[in-house]
């Protein structure tokens, strides 16, 4: 049997993602046999017959109940993985996760604010996205107060922004109605795809997909960020422009994923490492493969979240639990080159 090469893993990861999407569409409390899916597709294309009631049931299950959630899971998983890999390249540090510059704490504060202001779900999503961007702008702004382009100062700016917006979140939680609003905030912070509605998805998904594709296309430029600044300049690479471009894009992706699913942890750290084990550190392959594996991971986590109990377990709990275990299992191989 021929061994897997980095070149063959990219198409395989796309196939795996398509298989996982198909499985997520068919499986659930009400499973749809694959033969029934084919009958449904044939009937939809006018090549066969299907009882009207059954046709409507399958149509409703796939297109109304499951497809929005599957699309959201794939985009959120892919987005967090791609932005995690990009942040790791920008900061030349394999232990960086997408929340480094404060985007997640900013998003959390915005969402909590939206919940106590009793805004609509769409407005909460948009507000969380905006405050996430403001948090990162705050971190980058603090770094620029010192008029240098040092990565260390960026990280310090991120630490300050994280602390600032985490404290704002705490104040918001303190002020929230403990009976009604506080549980909503806590549940939102645990992450979930159950609240994804068609309206929010239609608004967010095209931008998120576009940003993920754009990031994947920038793989070679992101590779250049592994160089020291002096080396990059001496190779004619506009390192500052690339660095800030990637930070803006990765932050936007993160904020959009949070607006769809709340806080979903560990994917941005774990999945890029798994992908790096398979295809190596070159971002040209790493980013698309991370995107596919991130989508698969979140589909699987969402499947577990929906099916292990009668109620739905928050997605963030599942990703953190399985992510941490998986990370420990692969750590002995992942650490090669950086520990």
């Amino acid at each position, binding site marked *: 049997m021929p061994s897997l090469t980095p070149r063959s893993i990219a198409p395989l990861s796309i196939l795996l993602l398509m298989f996982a999407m198909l499985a997520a569409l068919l499986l659930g409390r009400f499973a749809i046999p694959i033969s029934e899916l084919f009958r449904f597709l044939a009937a939809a294309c006018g090549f066969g017959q299907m009882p009207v009631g059954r046709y409507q049931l399958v149509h409703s299950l796939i297109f109304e109940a499951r497809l929005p959630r599957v699309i959201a899971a794939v985009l959120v998983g892919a987005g967090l993985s791609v932005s995690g890999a990009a942040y790791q390249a920008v900061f030349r540090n394999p232990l960086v996760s997408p929340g480094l510059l404060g985007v997640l704490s900013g998003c959390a504060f915005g969402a909590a604010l939206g919940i106590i202001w009793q805004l609509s779900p769409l407005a909460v999503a948009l507000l969380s996205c905006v405050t996430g961007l403001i948090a990162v702008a705050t971190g980058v702004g603090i770094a620029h107060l010192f008029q240098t382009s040092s990565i260390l100062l960026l990280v310090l700016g991120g630490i300050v922004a994280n602390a600032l917006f985490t404290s704002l979140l705490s104040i918001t939680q303190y002020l929230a109605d403990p009976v009604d609003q506080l549980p909503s905030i806590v549940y939102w912070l645990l992450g979930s795809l159950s609240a994804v509605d068609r309206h929010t998805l239609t608004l967010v998904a095209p931008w998120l997909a576009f940003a993920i594709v754009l990031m994947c296309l920038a793989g070679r430029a992101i*590779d250049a960020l592994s160089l020291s600044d002096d080396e990059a300049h*001496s190779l004619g690479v506009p390192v500052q422009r690339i660095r800030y471009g990637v930070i803006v894009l990765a932050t936007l992706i993160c904020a959009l994923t949070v607006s769809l699913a709340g806080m979903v942890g560990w994917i941005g750290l774990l999945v890029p490492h798994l992908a790096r084990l398979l295809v190596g*550190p070159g971002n040209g392959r790493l980013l698309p493969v991370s995107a596919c594996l991130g989508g698969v991971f979140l589909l699987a986590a969402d499947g577990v979240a929906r099916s292990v109990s009668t109620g739905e377990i928050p997605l963030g709990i599942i990703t953190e639990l399985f992510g941490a275990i998986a990370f420990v299992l692969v750590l002995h191989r992942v650490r090669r080159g950086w520990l």
Partner: protein
Amino acid sequence: MTVLAAERLSCRLGQRLILDDVSFSVRPGDNIALLGANGAGKSTLLRILLGLLRPAAGQVTLAGQPLQQLSRRAIARQLAYVPQSHVPSFPFSVTHIVAQGRLPTTGLGHVADGADAESVERALVELGIEHLRHRPYTELSGGERQRVLIARAMVQRARLIILDEPVTGLDYGHQLRLLALLERLAAQGLSIVSSTHRPEHALACANRVLVLHEGRLLADGPPHAVITCDLLLRLYDVHVRQVEADGHRFFVPC
């Protein structure tokens, strides 16, 4: 014909004068050793030559054109830089690192093609490191890393390679092999400027030595004419004795 000319360069760091009125030129095939004590201004001079730092006064011209009028890519097509050390955070393969030398020619949007692979392979073979091509760069020894970075500079097809203390941290064998390599590259018509703390290295392989002392260019000439016991006393404040053997000059502490 001049590859690079430094004209009356001065540089300040706060109130401190780091470089003071430094002028010299680099011709094709020059293998120049830049000698000086710690804090003499060597690294600052190299950064100015690379266009990474603006001088307070004076200018650098590359093939007759002022550096400030050239884009970074245009500079990179003529001038390559080998840093003292480079350890990426991720285990990129040697081929990947060497192929980055194509960036000034192809740009970032380019998809690697046969010409890139051929160029990388030629440099790997020329430096005798083709057996390392699939190895992670992070797992190489110091000497192997220096060779990989020189291979990247060769892929860059620059006419001048600037090396920042290239033998630092290398064992004796790797030091000698690296110096022989620089001599060979200069014999092929490439220009080399490398900073060093070892006068013996300048004597062993350079055809010119630039001596920086407290920011001023103290001497510019053939190593055997420039490097003397008096010069080393002035630069490093150490008394040494000169020993000649088989046409080679050595210095031993008194």
